[in-house]
Each structure stands twice: as C-alpha cells, then as structure tokens.
C-alpha cells in the first residue's frame, strides 16, 4: 500500500491509514466489555456474520472481549443472494477459527412472508416487463470518476437464458426495488434481536467508518445495533485488524460485495465512487482538509476527479442526516433521563 518516497515527501499517502493494531484492538476490546457488561448489563453479544470482512472482524473482537461462550454467531442466508453458499461457508470457517458453534437461521421464509421478492420483482417489471422467475438482477450506478453526469440508478437483469437487459429506473421503481430489498437487512437485524433478547445479550453492528459516514446502511437494518465496534475505522483499517486478529485468509482476500442482490454487485457500482482503499484515502483527505490536487497525486486521479468524489461525499452526508438521526421529539420530555 505504500507510495514511493517522493510522493511521501510531497504529500499524503496510504500510510496515514496505518493503525497501531495492538493498541486499536485493546481499545475496542475494553470498550466492548464496558458497554455490553457494565452499561447495558447484558451477558454477551450477538453477531450476524456474512462471511465478509466487517462482520468477521466484529465477531473476532467480541470473542476477544467476552469469550467464545458469550458470543452468539448467526448465519442468515436467504434463497437467492448471489453469494449465499459461499458466504455461509466463509461464515462457518470464521466461526470455527473462533471456537464458536454458529447458529443457522435461513430467512427466506420471512422474506417470502413479507413479500420481499414479489414486491421487488413487480417494481422491476415496471421497466423490464419480461422480468420473472429465474431472472436475476442488481441495481447499478454510473461511475462518478468518468464524467460529471448525475448518478442515475439502473437495474441490470439477466434472463434464465443469459440475456442481459439494462434499464434506467423511474423514481417509484428505484424506491420500490430498494425498499423491498431492504427487507433483507431488516429481517436479519430482527433475527439478531430475537436471539439477543432470548439470551439477554446485546447486538453488535458491523458498519465501518466508510459505510457509517456515507450512510451505506439500512435504517433499522444493518444500521441498527447496540454497539458498533468498528464504526470509527476506515475499511482498510478493518483489513489491518482482520490480519492482526487471524481472520481466515479466504475472508481477507475476498472483494467486498453488497450481498443483497441476486447478481453479484460490487460496492462501488452501487454506492461508492471508488474502490474502498482509494475511497478511504479520499475520505481521510477530505476530513483532514487535504486539497483535491494533493489527494489526486496520491491516487493517480486528476484534481477534477477528486473534486467530484468530494462532492459525492458531501451529497451522501446530506442524505445520511436522515439515516443517522435520533428520533425527533416534538417537545421537551419531563424529567426523562437521557
């Protein structure tokens, strides 16, 4: 991840994201113990594991803090996600490495009961009338790097025969597909809270700083949790901790995915402007007042391209206001404690 010495001298580099891994681990472990046991008076933690890097690191940190018998790991596959089998397998491999027997909760029947698939498919059919059983889909955005076009969502669908159709979404269609798909994250969180309530445990949240800051989570879904042990860490710092904590290599080397659509979907084609490590550095640079020129030099991008990423970061933060907001009151409650 390093840059050459001339770049280092003249400006920022990926080095700024380097963690003291031992100290960071220690700080998080202490905080988990203090919050879960002392503040919440809960006996342990529930972690939904997806086979991805974030949930794996959160699970490993919880096991360090609370011990394997106080961590309940949930695998929650559903019928159609692009990577369900692989995710479940990676989740099992993680659990094994932590000495925890994971519990499997297949959420397909909840999603069917909620009409998740049916509602989503009917939203897709508004722009792709032939969409039906056996088809797969995802939602994509054009690159923010290549032009200053507005980022307009399209749906990409593959027929069972392998034909690909791409169609721009109208507002109702876009909102309809996203709303229906959000049942997945919300159902998973509901299941995590069921087990937490049953065991008198707390629920861990897995968003990292990039996701947290940019609002890449579902309100009441993966955005909901009792504690969020890695929400202050850039994604590349999560990878550093993964290595430090001995997360299985096959998880560390897997490219990030949204794991929500039936076609494989990278995080940057749906949400972020850049691959995560570059996105990390742009966000760090913006947070620390580094100008677009200097950031561009570190990333091999033009100043104009970095400006577009900065503007995209700002725009996402505006939308994240709603996602981060605590419930708004309409008056001052009498004597309430918090």
């Amino acid at each position, binding site marked *: 991840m390093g840059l050459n010495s001339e770049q280092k001298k003249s400006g920022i580099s990926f080095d700024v994201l380097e963690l003291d891994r031992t100290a960071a681990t220690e700080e998080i472990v202490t905080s988990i113990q203090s919050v879960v046991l002392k503040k919440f008076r809960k006996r342990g933690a529930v972690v939904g594991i997806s086979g991805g890097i974030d949930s794996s690191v959160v699970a490993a940190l919880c096991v360090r803090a609370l011990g394997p018998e106080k961590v309940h790991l949930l695998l929650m596959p559903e019928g159609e996600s692009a990577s369900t089998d692989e995710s479940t397998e990676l989740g099992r491999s993680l659990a094994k490495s932590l000495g925890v027997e994971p519990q499997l909760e297949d959420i397909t029947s909840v999603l069917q009961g909620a009409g998740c698939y049916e509602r989503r498919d009917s939203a897709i059919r508004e722009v792709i009338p032939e969409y039906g059983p056996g088809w797969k889909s995802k939602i994509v955005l*054009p690159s923010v790097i290549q*032009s*200053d*076009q*507005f*980022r*307009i*969502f399209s749906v990409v669908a593959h027929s069972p025969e392998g034909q690909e159709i791409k169609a*721009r*979404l*109208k*507002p109702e269609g*876009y*909102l309809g597909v996203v709303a229906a798909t959000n049942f997945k994250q919300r159902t998973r969180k509901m299941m995590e809270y069921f087990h937490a309530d049953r065991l008198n445990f707390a629920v861990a949240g897995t968003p990292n700083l990039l996701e947290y800051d940019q609002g890449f989570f579902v309100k009441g879904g993966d955005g909901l949790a009792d504690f969020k042990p890695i929400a202050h860490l850039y994604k590349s710092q999560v990878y550093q901790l993964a290595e430090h904590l001995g997360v299985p290599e096959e998880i560390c080397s897997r490219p990030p995915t949204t794991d929500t659509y039936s076609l494989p979907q990278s995080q940057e084609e749906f949400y972020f402007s850049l691959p995560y490590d570059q996105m990390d550095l742009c966000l760090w640079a913006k947070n620390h007042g580094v100008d677009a020129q200097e950031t561009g030099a570190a990333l091999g991008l033009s100043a104009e391209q970095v400006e577009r990423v900065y*503007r995209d970061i700002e*725009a996402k933060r*505006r*939308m994240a206001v709603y996602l981060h907001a605590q419930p708004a009151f309409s008056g001052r409650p009498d004597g309430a404690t918090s």
Partner: protein
Amino acid sequence: MDTAGNQKKVRAFVVENLLLGEEENDFSDSQSFLESGLIDSTGILEVIAFLEEEYEITIADEEMVPDNLDSVDNIVAFLQTRRVG
C-alpha cells in the same frame, strides 16, 4: 415554444417536489439544486421523470449533467435546445 410557460411549469414542479418545507420566496430560478441541497438521488430521478413525461422527450445519459438539469434556468435552457414546451 413557450419559454415563459416552461419556466412557470418547471418552477411549480420544483416548488412542489423539491422545495418541501423551504420558503418559496427564498428560492430563485438560477439557484443550483445541488448546492442548495434540494436534490438527492431520488430527486434527480423525479426531475428526469417529470421532464420526460411532461414534454414527451427522452433524455440521454450524457444529457443528465448539471449544466442541463441543476436549476430552473438550466432546465428551461435545456428544453429550449430540445425545442419543446
């Protein structure tokens, strides 16, 4: 082509759909939607859907740039190039 009519119609759409709780008096036709935080990923879809339906045009991907769509004035000028309204 009725530029004044377009101006009125587009402004009415923006006031109704993007301005929400904000004061209409504080909003000018040259104001950037992006810079005033009036538009998000759903808002831009709404603008495009409105224009395509109201004016029976198709807007190409490369036309979906701030120069064409980021203020009432920009939209009216864009409609002028498409000779509609």
